[in-house]
């Protein structure tokens, strides 16, 4: 472990990202567009009635929380891992007495700070205009924190192991695009997973994608019974365990291969 180096990296990454804050603000804006569209679609469709138990105000609350959670769990660093491997930049990282994972984590932390500087005020303004309806209980609030942390870890390491395929294939990041599409469909973006049609709902419940995004939103907005909450946590922790195994295996075999074929 090299915590000193890790912290220094976070600070410097943050400094260099602040040089381009408007670019990152634009990215953050781009990422909030799809959930924002569905916010308007569903809240308009609900009108004065409810759809699947959601009122207009509840749809607004669900999507505003989802916009924030999406931003907090989305790992844009996954997209750069492949470039680092392909360009041979991995060489400089492997020469340091510190795992290259630190650099990626530093970008994650630095990125979240920059994005939140944009997202929190924007969401607050949207909340003032759109009147969300949400009753957060202490239990939901407390459960949300680990659900969010696990969701980030799951999304980050899932994307990371996919990105590490770049050790073998040149254009492995196509799989990251696929992951984004599956998150869009099955993680509660196009609709809250409770509203998905039969087979899709069942798939969403067992596949990892809902646990990267939709699950913490459902926890905070109070849509889940106690049993559903614990089942959700079990799936989330189980998928994280599997993902970490995949990540460690891919990392070890990948670096071994890299040092066999050269960067």
């Amino acid at each position, binding site marked *: 472990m*090299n915590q*000193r*180096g890790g*912290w*220094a*990296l976070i*600070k*410097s*990454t943050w*400094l*260099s*990202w602040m*040089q*381009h804050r408007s670019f990152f603000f634009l990215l953050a804006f781009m990422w909030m567009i799809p959930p924002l569209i569905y916010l308007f679609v569903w809240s308009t469709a609900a009108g004065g009635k409810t759809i699947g138990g959601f009122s207009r105000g509840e749809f607004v609350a669900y999507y505003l929380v989802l916009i924030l959670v999406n931003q907090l769990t989305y790992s844009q660093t996954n997209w750069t891992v492949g470039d680092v491997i392909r360009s*041979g*930049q991995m*060489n*400089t990282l*492997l*020469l*340091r*007495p*510190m795992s290259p994972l630190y650099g990626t984590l530093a970008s994650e932390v630095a990125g979240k700070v920059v994005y939140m500087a944009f997202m929190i005020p924007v969401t607050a303004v949207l909340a003032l205009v759109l009147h969300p309806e949400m009753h957060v209980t202490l239990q939901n609030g407390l459960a949300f924190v680990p659900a969010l942390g696990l969701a980030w870890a799951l999304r980050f390491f899932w994307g990371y192991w996919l990105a590490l395929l770049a050790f073998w294939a040149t254009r492995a990041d196509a799989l990251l695009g696929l992951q984004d599409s599956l998150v869009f469909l099955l993680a509660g973006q196009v609709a809250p997973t409770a509203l998905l049609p039969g087979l899709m709902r069942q798939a969403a419940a067992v596949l990892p994608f809902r646990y990267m995004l939709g699950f913490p939103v459902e926890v905070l907005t109070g849509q889940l019974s106690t049993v559903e909450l614990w089942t959700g946590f079990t799936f989330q922790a189980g998928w994280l365990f599997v993902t970490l195994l995949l990540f460690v295996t891919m990392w070890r075999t990948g670096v*071994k291969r890299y*040092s*066999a*074929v*050269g*960067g």
Partner: protein
Amino acid sequence: MAETQIVVHNLSKTYRVPGREPGLAASFRSLVRRTYRDVEAVRDVSFTVEAGEMVGFIGPNGAGKTTTLKMLSGLLHPTAGQARVLGGVPWERKPDYLQRISMVLGNKSQMLWDIPPLDTFHVLGEIYHVAPAELKRTLDELVELLEMQELLTKPVRNFSLGERMKCEFVAGLLHHPRVLFLDEPTLGLDVSMQGRLRRFLAEYNRRSDVTMILTSHYVADVVTLCPRVILIHRGRLLYDGELSRLAERLAPFKLIRLALSNERVENEPELPPGADIVEQENGRLTLRVARSAAPSITAHLLNTLPVADLAVEDPPIEAVIDQIYQEGDV
């Protein structure tokens, strides 16, 4: 007696590269069945390096220099053979080992692009656990040696290649490595910047006694910095020793340059046996003669020809090296 820091024994590296015939049909076949061929980048290379030595690794493109350097720095696993650097096996990449070496790559940067170099240096200081006071002392020394005070606070993206390379050197030396690998550190730099960096490396080696292995295509780098060269060609070690000896061994001849006075320019001069004309232009002649015959031929020339000027020289080292690259043998 100096301590042996690098021991390389029968080191070999074979790459397996995918290959296929040209054309659409072959491209479809390769989808189903990929064919590979083995490329032997390094074959049975052995040598040792003592503490504080500066060794030049020379050889044509694709000779296996960078592959060897990458194995010694731990980036590549060898196919066969052993190497120990500072007592450790490089490709185990233990943090304790990486802490004591450094590699400066002329074509890769470890600077953070958007922030001033001073920030990157501080990050590296933290990564390598250099105490703040020590970091400041080292930085001051390196910055002074490289005359780069004014660069410290400008973003790296605005730097010229030479300015960036200065930063790469500082970044690579902040943690006081015991062994420094330099892969084409002067690549693409102008003549005066090359000279400056060479002077810096020589001075740094003198002060810190760091062991350096340098690859470069610029002969001047090797001539100025490295009393010892290791010559690699097609993956094999062809020569290991003093650069001057290499020239003697490889080029057992001398060049005699002479200028003749004007009246005999029109006619072909009569030359003694054993002197071959390499160049002839406007009364100026360059002759190639066997080393042992140089004195007698010189005397003969002075006696028989109207010599205005005469010089006996060793062939330029570039020509010697070119000859090896072409012929692949010493």
